[in-house]
């Protein structure tokens, strides 16, 4: 499961750290740390954490069965000059 927390929204209620402590932890009194790639075994806990967040700051992909993750076509490409930037 891929996870992202909108930390602009996050106000440190720590519900997620309480409900899914293997994925979300508080660092100090307010700052949140989390693992963006949570293991399947934490699925239920992550679902509860996302639902319980008072400011709905947690986005999870693949929480519901059948949510598609499309294969990514990777082009390794030719070597490029650093000046190209992107």
């Amino acid at each position, binding site marked *: 499961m*891929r996870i992202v927390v909108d930390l602009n929204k996050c*106000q440190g209620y720590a519900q997620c750290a309480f409900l899914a402590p293997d994925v979300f932890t508080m660092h100090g009194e*307010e700052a949140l740390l*989390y*693992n963006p790639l949570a293991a399947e075994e934490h699925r239920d806990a992550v679902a509860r954490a996302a639902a319980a967040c008072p400011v709905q700051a947690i986005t999870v992909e693949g929480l519901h069965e059948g949510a598609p993750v499309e294969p990514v076509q990777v082009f390794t490409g030719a070597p*490029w000059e650093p000046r190209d*930037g992107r």
Partner: protein
Amino acid sequence: MAADYVDWLRREGRIVIVGASLAGLRAAETLREEGFTGSLTLIGDEPYDPYDRPPLSKSVLLGKASPRHTELPRRRHLDAEWRLGVPAAGLDLTGKRVLLADGEEVEYDRLLIATGVRARPWPVAEEAELDGVFVLRTRDDAVALTERLRAGAKRVVVIGAGFAGSEVASACREMGMEVTVAERAGAPLVGALGGVVGAVAADLQLENGVDLRTHVTVTALEGDPMGRVRSVHLSDESVVEADVVVVSLGSLRNTEWLTGSGLGAGPRGIASDAGCRAFDFRGIVTDDVFVAGDVARSPHALFGYQFLSLEHWGNAVAQAETAAHNMICPASDRRPHMWMPAFWSSQFGVNIKSVGVPPMGDELMIIQGSTAERRFVGVYGYKGRIVAGVTFDNARWLEYCQRQIEQGAPFPVEYPTMDRRPEGRKAVPADFPDPALPTHGPTVTLSGYSPADRRLVFTPGHH
């Protein structure tokens, strides 16, 4: 006619997004959400799925997440063609084609540029190439740095005490390494939050055992005969031993590939109107090229229509959504990008958050808590108005600060508060460095003229 074109575009047009990071991904999702059924191509220079960067200097360094797995969750299925691992190398505005570095071309009907920024490298190339010298911006950077730190680094020197540098210093201290931070200004975070708040950040670093050196620049990185970094020479003639050096000198905007394209793009980013439509080099708005995210700079009504470049996570999301909406709607339905600037940082166990544009403020007032306790709410004032707020471990006040900014609330604030305020109820100079002097790069760039001024003052950002 125009409505017919928009209908056709939404149905079977070709939209190309250059930049496959946060802004590019969220723009693509918004296009599909709003009913775009044409062809969608995302071009990215890194060979990875779009991934999140903030954890790289926090959770990842602390070992709570893998640097290889911070991919962003998808909000929906995209049905897009991904061209990853190959950067865009040029733009043909007339022919409506993006040129790729591998020689291929991609045609578009509408283009979104979201190429973001990259880490500013150490300026002396042979010193930057020493083994043990790192920057931290990309996933590859994070993999390289974390592997080295895990391999038993003992003495880390961080060059530059902006947010990224301070977060690296914080994580390294937490892992028990000796850390020296070298900063040209008088304190950490001064570019983004000013000297008063910077002094609090300096106390935080000192209390957590960082060897903080301010008012110094790094004059040279010295290597051993094996090409490994060995020490860092400072402008006060001191020498600091190091086995890892993290260069954290802000960022450069990825606009070089647009050189000669005719687009209004340069070292300060790509200028656009409030609706994310890019300007060409003559200052005329384009119809089919849009910009979003860190690489964009656009005027903001709340802040005197100054052009703001925001290297903020939330801005990348909001601007991408606005740009995507405007790309596929009739002119009368376009929205301006009016997102309230906001960012966060966590370092040394303290949650630092801000709304508005602190560098615009010339005065600061602590309205709750105290800087001595490092738990406070401060508001910045400019010409009698509140223009920004900052909190240390007081995030729940930010919404209030945001409303005050939106309402143009008066500054200094008059209301009494219940809690202790050793500093007293008075505004003090916020102590931002002279904008004409070079800095390692604040997270907000103010540029251009403020219509509030009767006498125009040009304030170049120099970074």
